[in-house]
């Protein structure tokens, strides 16, 4: 049963299994284990990034394709939901329409970029995606009538997903284990279930015959071609698939935030975050996405708090408090960047698996 849910791709390491199970439980029960607006928000972001990072791993780790346009697809999904909700009015139908058309547009765009440039060498594909992504970001901020420009769009999701919607009054008296039963809780589970389904789907894809071909192409595209695989077609297919899933992740994010903006979904910064999450977690492992996203989002949210405490401790010593001040959290994130690439060259998953 588990074997087939996980598509036969088990964690293959005791510690890894425990950690993954821990994360699963924490995310599944986040609103109850860590009640609080901020914590649940963090959990939801972890979920969204797991999907996003896993979809990037599909491309990078399995397909060996470096793309800088992943946030673009993410953004397309997010804007899809935002625009549909703005123009069709709040409702699940708007979310569905937005998500599906977002995913389709993303896949289509990926198809066009792929057909044009996947024949070119890898590094050029990377650069072309970089260029296209920045052009789209510019476009989004230009078309402010449609997209809200730099300011982004704030919109309403169905009432059932908002904090004002209360349920379970009769049966549970409106609370369960001290947690208020409201639309926010539903929204969280909407995101969580979406994440679970998409992740398991991707796990299946990478362990399907298709996934094997992708790996073969990553290893040696020349030879893959000469044993009869149409390399460009597979690469394009992988790009489209990964773009569509990234767009769905964007839709989940939009549903959660009820806001989209260029900095939130399209920025180069997020692209780099994704890259880092894939590498920290372990490329080509899928499970790495879970670990990478969890760790990174936690660091992003709590590093500052941690450093504030640390700088209090070294008060009086020259320059050190300055370096440890909470405002310098980026500095330490950079250091973390470098160290993680050194100490986890195969990612955390690779590390854990090698230990036996």
């Amino acid at each position: 049963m588990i074997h087939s849910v996980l598509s036969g791709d088990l964690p293959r390491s005791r510690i890894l299994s425990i950690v993954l199970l821990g994360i699963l439980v924490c995310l599944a029960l986040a609103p109850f284990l860590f009640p609080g607006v901020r914590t649940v928000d963090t959990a939801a972001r972890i979920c969204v990034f797991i999907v996003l990072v896993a979809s990037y791993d599909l491309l990078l780790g399995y397909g060996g394709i470096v793309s800088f346009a992943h946030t673009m697809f993410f953004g397309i999904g997010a804007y899809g939901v935002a625009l549909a909700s703005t123009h069709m009015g709040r409702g699940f139908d708007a979310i569905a329409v937005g998500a599906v058309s977002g995913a389709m547009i993303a896949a289509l765009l990926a198809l066009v970029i792929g057909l044009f440039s996947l024949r070119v060498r890898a590094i050029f594909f990377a650069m072309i995606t970089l260029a296209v992504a920045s052009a789209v970001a510019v476009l989004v901020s230009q078309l402010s009538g449609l997209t809200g420009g730099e300011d982004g769009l704030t919109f309403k999701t169905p009432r059932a997903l908002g904090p004002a919607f209360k349920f379970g009054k009769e049966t549970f008296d409106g609370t369960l284990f001290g947690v208020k039963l409201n639309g926010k809780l539903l929204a969280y589970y909407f995101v969580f279930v979406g994440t679970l389904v998409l992740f398991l789907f991707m796990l299946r894809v990478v362990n399907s015959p298709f996934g094997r071909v992708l790996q073969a192409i990553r290893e040696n595209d020349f030879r893959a071609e000469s044993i009869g695989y149409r390399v460009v077609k597979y690469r394009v297919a992988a790009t489209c698939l990964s773009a569509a899933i990234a767009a769905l992740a964007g839709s989940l994010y939009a549903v959660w935030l009820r806001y989209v903006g260029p900095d939130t979904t399209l920025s180069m910064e997020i692209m780099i975050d994704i890259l880092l999450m894939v590498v920290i977690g372990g490329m080509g492992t899928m499970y790495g996405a879970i670990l990478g996203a969890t760790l990174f989002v936690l660091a992003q949210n709590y590093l500052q708090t941690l450093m504030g405490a640390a700088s209090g401790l070294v008060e009086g010593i020259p320059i050190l408090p300055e370096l440890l001040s909470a405002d310098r959290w980026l500095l330490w994130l950079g250091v973390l960047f470098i160290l993680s690439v050194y100490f986890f060259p195969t990612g955390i998953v690779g590390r854990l698996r090698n230990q036996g």
Partner: protein
Amino acid sequence: DIKIAHIYGKTGPFEAYAKQSHDGLMLGLEYATGGTMEINGEKIIMIEKDTQLKPENGKALLEEAYGDDEVDLAIGPVSSGVALAMLPVAEEYEKILLVEPAVADSITGANWNRYIFRTSRNSSQDAVASAIALAGDNVHIATLAQDYAFGRDGIAAFREALATKGISLVHEEYAPTDTTDFTAPAERIFNAMKDLDGTKKLFVIWAGGGNPLSKINAMDPGRFGIEFAGVGNILAALKSYKEFPGMVGATYYYYELPDNPVNDWLVKEHFDRFGTPPDFFTAGGMAAGIAAVEAIKKAGSTDTEALITAMEGMEWETPKGTMQFRPEDHQAMQTMYHFKIRVDDDVEWAIPELVRELTIDEMPIPIRNQ
């Protein structure tokens, strides 16, 4: 206790603005409470949160402040984009968000809700003040702004304000935000203006880097009799104005411009504590701090509805003189300053000298939230 959250982009490109804003806020609280940091016997507790200039963070942090920290009121943020994302949260939690120093018109315009107040100026105030400062007989004005919503809205407001003075723009030039080479925009402006008679002014609104003024100046616009006009900025940026003695415009704040006891106190304390004069955003921060204290005092509690009632139409003293929250859109009406640049070799930056104060009554600021 009274809990106040300051949510702003402490890290990132606006770090300098953020620091000024926060220093001002703390000074404002101190001034308004007479140094006790207590209102009606209750201690003020400040909670700081860093949005990293990301709208989604601003949103989450505001939710956290209202939901988990249970603050009575929140202040911030620096960037308009972040502010816009935060507005609905105030409505959801039915608590007050005092916007400072984000400037977009839509904060107290299209995206406004009744829990939003703003102490900082909005773009229209900048535009209208500039229009009054620049208007005159036989004046030809061209504009240069960034090609995105902020720049276009700013110019639109400016154009409208000028129209009431009977002046229309000669040329509007928009350049991408990341433009570094201004040769082409300058040539287009020169070509549009060179054959005109009378006073020719180029009005530039440009937020952030790029520094178009000195680059265009390097192309010698004086050849065609073109002069610059602009808006105020932080002291560091005023350094680059040293190339433009005599340039006129309207500004929001420079520490020598206002003449009132609050400003005197601010300037003195700021010199004492930091060794520098208060800057552009310090004044706004202080205005927000004083507003918060005055509002709670007036309302007698921190109950949201009581606060709203107290704040609508409230007048209070700030480093910029008396401000008033307009009841319709909760925008603080405030004095602006018509300046002229003077260069003094002993001062590191160019000095905007007061030509005249533009009072609240003089400036018809449109209400845009209907």
